[in-house]
């Protein structure tokens, strides 16, 4: 049998009050902040895992932003390439009209002038800028790809043949700066503008053989432009598919983070009510501890 002394009664009940009030404060904090992990020591493993999840979510967010920005750029490129293809087709029909023996000299002059106009339009297309940067100069985005120094002077490609890519996912990148030379010249010995200049001369003089060569060159340029547009189209599809994936990844990352950090509100409120009841009970117990002692009974 153990003796119960004056101080041991108070010590035990004050310990109970301390414990229950600490539990109550903690459960109140969880309900009001909605977070399981307020301090790292609440769940060290969870806190470390949350750091990892945040890193992954930040990466996904960045890829999404890049994908959006690049998409608008590719739209512009696509539009320009459509125009290029249209112009090349027009040039082909003009040149064909100049072939044969039916055209007059005046007609030839008109056709060659039309071709010159198409050539200048194509020059402008290849020099397209977006936000002050050239789209078809390869990685040399501040260098004008084709600077014509005088009319009818053949400008040579001043840009870079190296392209630039942007990352829209792990191991998923799309081209954002295009090598113009691959479109205008590719594997030909002359580039498109040189061929066009020769064609203009051929049409005005009626040199059918030269017109034939020029048409062939235009045909090859048409193929190259179409191939480039297909590539851009594919990249845009990649971006669309990637954005869907990124969205899903973000959702599942956010869910996992929430599981780690957020509290189950229903359970937390129940805990808080229980902690409150326990606290009140401990306080009540203190009250009953020394209500009566032998001193009350001694006369």
């Amino acid at each position, binding site marked *: 049998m*153990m*003796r*119960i*002394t*004056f*101080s*041991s009664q108070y*010590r*035990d009940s004050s*310990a109970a009050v301390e414990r229950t009030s600490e539990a109550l404060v903690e459960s109140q904090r969880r309900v009001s902040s909605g977070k399981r*992990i*307020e*301090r*790292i*020591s*609440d*769940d*060290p*493993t969870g*806190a*470390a*895992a*949350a*750091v*990892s999840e*945040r*890193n992954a979510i*930040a*990466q996904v*967010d*960045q890829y999404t*932003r*890049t994908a959006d*920005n*690049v998409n608008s750029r590719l739209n512009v490129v696509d539009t320009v390439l459509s125009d290029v293809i249209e112009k090349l087709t027009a040039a082909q029909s003009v040149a064909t009209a100049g072939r044969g023996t039916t055209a007059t000299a005046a007609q030839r002059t008109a056709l060659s002038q039309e071709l010159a106009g198409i050539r200048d339009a194509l020059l402008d297309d290849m020099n397209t800028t977006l*936000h*002050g*940067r050239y789209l078809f*100069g*390869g*990685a*040399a*985005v*501040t*260098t004008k790809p084709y600077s014509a120094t005088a009319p009818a002077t053949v400008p040579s490609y001043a840009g*870079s043949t*190296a392209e*630039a*890519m*942007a*990352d829209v996912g*792990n191991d998923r*990148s799309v081209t*954002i*700066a295009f090598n113009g030379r691959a479109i205008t010249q590719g594997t030909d010995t002359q580039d498109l503008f040189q061929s066009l200049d020769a064609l203009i001369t051929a049409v005005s003089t009626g040199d059918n053989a030269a017109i034939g060569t020029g048409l062939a060159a235009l045909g090859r340029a048409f193929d190259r432009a179409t191939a480039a547009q297909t590539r851009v189209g594919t990249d845009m599809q990649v971006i669309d598919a990637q954005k869907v994936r990124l969205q899903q990844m973000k959702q599942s990352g956010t869910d996992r983070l929430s599981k780690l*950090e957020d509290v189950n509100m229903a359970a937390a409120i129940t805990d808080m009510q229980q902690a409150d009841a326990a606290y009140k009970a401990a306080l009540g117990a203190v009250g009953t501890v020394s209500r009566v*002692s*032998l*001193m009350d009974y*001694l006369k």
Partner: protein
Amino acid sequence: MGDLFSTLTSVSRALDAQRYGLDVAGQNIANVNTPGYARRTVDLIALAPEAPGTAGRGVDVVGVRALRDRLLETRLTNEMPAQSREAAMAEALSVVESALGKPGTSIDANLQKFFDSFAELSEMPTSASHRESVIIQGEGLAAAFSDMAGRLESARLDADRAARGTVDDINSLVERIAALNVSIGNASSRERSLHARDEQFDLVRQLSELVDVQVLDREEGGIDLSIGNGRSVVVGETAYKIQVSSTAPNGHAALSVNGANITSEIKSGRLGGFLQVRDSNIPDYMSRLDTLAYSVATEVNALHSAGFDQTGAAAGTFFTAPAAVAGAAKGMAVRPALAADSRLIAAGSTTDAGNNTTARAIAGLREATVLNGNTATLSDGWGQLVYRVGRDTKTATDERNSRQEIVRQIDALRDAVSGVSLDEEAMNLLKFQRAYEANARFFQVIDQTLEMLLQMSGR
């Protein structure tokens, strides 16, 4: 043959004894809340008869005893240091924990923004605003590391300051204990030294909260104390105080007793807890932070220096190259020349204005496993530091709570032996009061008998 007069003497001695009993009960009641008090009890013996024809010479007070259990008191002084060490560690480490910042707002957030800025730069390497943004995020990251290192250092200083304060408390307790040894030694009887022993026990208990102390009982009734590896701090009436000296390079306290350095010998008590946090836990965190900062700076610099800046020249480093791993966090900074001129940022691996290979590579560091023998990313490194601090804090808190329970139980056991129960003392009051009344009554009876005797012979 006995006589009535000697009976009177024994009655007066009996009254005295019962009054003594009341006194002791009163003393116990008065000291019910005195810390360290052990309840007194009075020892009475019956006196044997001297002359034939008498029953005895009444009662005598042998002495007053304090009821103590040496075993329990020793257990208490053994358990308290461990509990208070964990409590001190939990206190000091929760400061460090809050210094690390809330999840998602600290160095990990700065790292994300830094990598984001390079990814954005890769979309448009010639954009001046994107370049400025890279510098801002780089400076933000460097400042975050530097601030964090500073906060860890000041947490260390806080622990040091707390340790110094504890040493002051220890020294004053040790002096008082030595002074009590003197008064216990000088006491003419054991009874007179009881209150001094009570006080001494309480002081030893307070001391054992501060440092793990070994207690040796002295023959004449006092105690000798030693700490660490048997370094004496109290021998009889002499107290050897702990000396504190500040050591280079950061002015931390080194402790010595009688010229011997005991800093590494203190393992427990609040002092032990603060010293452990100062000398073991926080340096560990600081070196992990330094390793992380060093890796960030070195990896970024390696990629950056291989590229070309906007002026067409081969690029220098992005961050000022850290001299060594130690101190890398505190000294982390964007290279001043680069911070002043955003053209010096290398976005590409060639001199082409739009080449973004370097920027993409640096942005790709976010997911690159460059730490721990190529198994962990940079943000994992941060996560590991976070885990360590959290786990150390949680362990200290849990240990403190469980040891608190043990101490409470030992306290309860000690109380069962030495504590004052008001109900019991009330019964003692009753007991001695009634005994006093009965003895006084007996005195009256003897008195009347004597009077009758005197009347008989007086005629």
